[in-house]
């Protein structure tokens, strides 16, 4: 610590280099902190569970060709379901308007009374039948499943509202925070009440956008088959380990049963792994991109520190020789350069911390982004100081090996 004064004097002499290194450390810290924060947010987002048996599930987007009446379509759906449920590799199948992570779809505002103007919250609407809970593999926490006789049908834009509804725990708790949701009514933009007859555990919404995060996991199940002319989704659960076989059998069986349907050869059938990959495509991409940029930045900063310190060591060989001749040990020289780097790094990280927080606050106002948690700044500061020390080590060791004889040389 006795060395700080001469170091400061030397730094005044190399003001420009000092400022440049400090500036670079500051910029690196600011960018890396924010990038790490983005990475963490995206990774946390894309590892959120859906609550369904993803490993065995796949989805068929079944569109109808030609125009048929609602009862005709409903009859065809029931035939299709029976066909699929008979297949050896299939455990269960159910009809729906959508599935978790589809990227958006039907959602309704929910109120506790029909007169209420401001909605209590929002729920993602899934249509299904008495097999939907088993098909999805969600856990029924309380109450009961739909009975087959409760399952109705809904045609194109028909105002049908079910008297019974199953909700997720998240939605039940939001509507009735005292835990008394079972048996209570809710109004999902409906004039008549729907009684909550069952509560299931996790069931993710159709969308996972920023808007949806406010209402995460708030979903409700309506006992209805979607008999719309555009078509519907069949959610199919394969028997354990038989996903591939089921994915081969089901489209074949459906087309054999009735060919006036369209299952897009490219996107018509998706395993849930594919659904998940698509849903979080951009999140994964951003995390990778931020990771690459951070790695390049850290490498460049380290290389820059090595380069500039090497120059300083070269420039000061004579002074180092004199110090050595006057009795300074190798360790003294080594610690001189390490301390110098620590001081410059210190200035850099102070600046960088301010810059990191400033950039984050600005991004919060410009983009839908959360506040940077200070943990990232602390990690970033420690990482950059260590990086600085590691980079300076090689040139500093070379400096410490300068022989005292150098003092006597003229150049």
């Amino acid at each position, binding site marked *: 610590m006795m060395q700080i004064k001469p170091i400061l004097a030397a730094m005044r002499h190399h003001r420009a280099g000092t400022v440049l290194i400090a500036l670079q450390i500051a910029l690196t810290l600011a960018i890396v902190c924010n990038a790490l924060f983005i990475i963490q947010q995206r990774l946390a987002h894309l590892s959120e569970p859906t609550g369904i048996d993803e490993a065995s599930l796949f989805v068929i987007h079944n569109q109808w060709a030609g125009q048929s009446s609602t009862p005709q379509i409903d009859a065809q759906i029931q035939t299709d379901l029976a066909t699929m449920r008979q297949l050896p590799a299939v455990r269960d199948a159910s009809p729906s308007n959508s599935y978790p992570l589809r990227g958006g779809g039907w959602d309704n505002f929910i109120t506790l009374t029909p007169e209420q103007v401001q909605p209590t919250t929002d729920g993602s609407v899934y249509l299904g039948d008495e097999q939907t809970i088993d098909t999805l593999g969600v856990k029924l926490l309380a109450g009961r499943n739909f009975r087959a006789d409760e399952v109705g049908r809904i045609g194109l834009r028909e105002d049908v509202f079910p008297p019974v509804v199953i909700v997720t725990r998240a939605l039940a708790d939001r509507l009735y925070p005292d835990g008394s949701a079972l048996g209570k009514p809710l109004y999902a*933009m409906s004039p008549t009440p729907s009684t909550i007859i069952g509560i299931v555990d996790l069931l993710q919404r159709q969308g996972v956008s920023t808007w949806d995060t406010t209402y995460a996991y708030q979903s409700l199940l309506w006992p209805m088959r979607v008999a719309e002319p555009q078509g519907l989704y069949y959610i199919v659960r394969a028997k354990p380990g038989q996903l591939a076989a089921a994915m081969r059998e089901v489209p074949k069986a459906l087309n054999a049963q009735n060919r006036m349907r369209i299952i897009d050869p490219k996107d018509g059938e998706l395993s849930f792994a594919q659904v998940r990959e698509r849903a979080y495509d951009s999140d994964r991409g951003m995390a990778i991109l931020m990771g690459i940029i951070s790695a390049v930045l850290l490498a460049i900063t380290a*290389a820059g520190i090595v380069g500039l310190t090497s*120059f300083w060591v070269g420039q000061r060989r004579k002074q180092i020789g004199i110090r050595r001749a006057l009795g300074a040990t190798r360790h003294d020289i080594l610690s001189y350069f390490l301390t110098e780097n620590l001081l410059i790094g210190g200035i850099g990280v102070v600046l960088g911390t301010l810059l990191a927080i400033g950039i984050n606050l600005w991004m919060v106002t410009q983009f839908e982004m959360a506040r940077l948690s200070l943990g990232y700044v602390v990690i970033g500061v420690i990482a950059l100081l260590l990086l600085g020390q590691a980079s300076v080590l090689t040139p500093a060791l070379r400096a410490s090996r300068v022989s005292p004889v150098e003092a006597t040389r003229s150049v």
Partner: protein
Amino acid sequence: MFAYYLELALRSLKRSPGLTALMVLTIAFGVAASMTTYSVFRAVSGDPIPWKSAKLFVPQIDNWGPNGRGSDGEPPNAMDYNDAITLMRDHRAKLQSAMYQISPSIVPADASKHPINVSGHAVYSEFFPMLDVPFLYGSGWSADDDTQRAAVVVISSKLNQKLFGGSNSVGKTVNVEGKDYRVVGVLNDWNPQPRFFDVVNSGGFSTGVEDVFLPFQRAITVGIPNDGNTNCNAVPTESGFVGLQHSACVWIAYMAELDDAAAATAYKQYLDGYAHDLQQSGHFGWAPNNRLRDLPAWLDNQHVVPSDTKVSLLVALGLLLACLVNTAGLLLAKFLRRSSEIGVRRALGAPRMAIYAQFLTEAGIIGLAGGVLGLLLTGVGVVSVGWVLPKDIAALARVDFSLLTLTLLVAVIATTLAGLYPTFRASRVQPAWQLKSN
């Protein structure tokens, strides 16, 4: 003199290959990261119809009132059926079209082929001239076809390829949703990005192709339902697609061509007058709160450029800045190490300007080398950007002549700028002091 400085610079760079390589790499990475993200940003923020975008306007009518507005007081971003039809009937713009997204099935004449599902829009006849839609064969339909709800269709060249093997199919028949339609036009390749005529439903960018266009009123009459977003502030009182048409739910996009500012002002007055009349008649319980934005303002308002694209570009520019600071530091070290050489040159009569020329040439060469390497890396980056950014957007990024030029320019100019301060310091070297100390 330049040739001499070039030689000096090359000699100096060869003397310390490690340092030179480090600087070139630094510049190359910084430039490549910025240019790759910029190529994506440029692709998504570009004007899809630059020759006309200032004349295309999107009207918004506040048919929901204060309770249905966003926190920013904005009216809905689409129209209900009643407003759209009234605006079409009043026909106050030079050209205009209401439109809604459809997804009908097409049954091929050949019974052995599977039916296919296509996407498209139900539009008015003025849609085609208004948006300068290019035709390969035939043309759009007439205003008479609009009013007579004629069974006519305009198809994409891709669908024409699939159904008719690419031949001129004008006059032939296509079966849409179980009914026969006469082909009046086949589009040339037309895939504007973003899908500016209906960004609400396309989300801006789309990997799909618009395969069919049907007359709006025809599609309504035969009940081809809308396939896009439907937003309701209340549940429609009637069921079905007809119920939707009678409701205040918004699901229709609208675009109008207005030639100048006066026409735009007049149209806005017309919209406000329309809303005012509805207020007077008691349909609206609130004062007019309409919007009329030209296309660029509308795309901005709808946040068509994804924020991820902007964040990536900003972070990459930050990386470039850090790379430049790094290069400045390294150049400073490199230049000042040659203080004695500078001293000798100065003592022999070289003016400061000569020192500037010499060292900026050296910085420029590093920039050029960094730029050339950066070009290669940018090429790799643009090709593989689909790996990290959404496919529909990444697919739009292109390497073209202007991007190549820009990459080189950015590299050379940025590196020269980074070399300015080190050069300034080099030019300040005192010849006497240098000569004495040696």
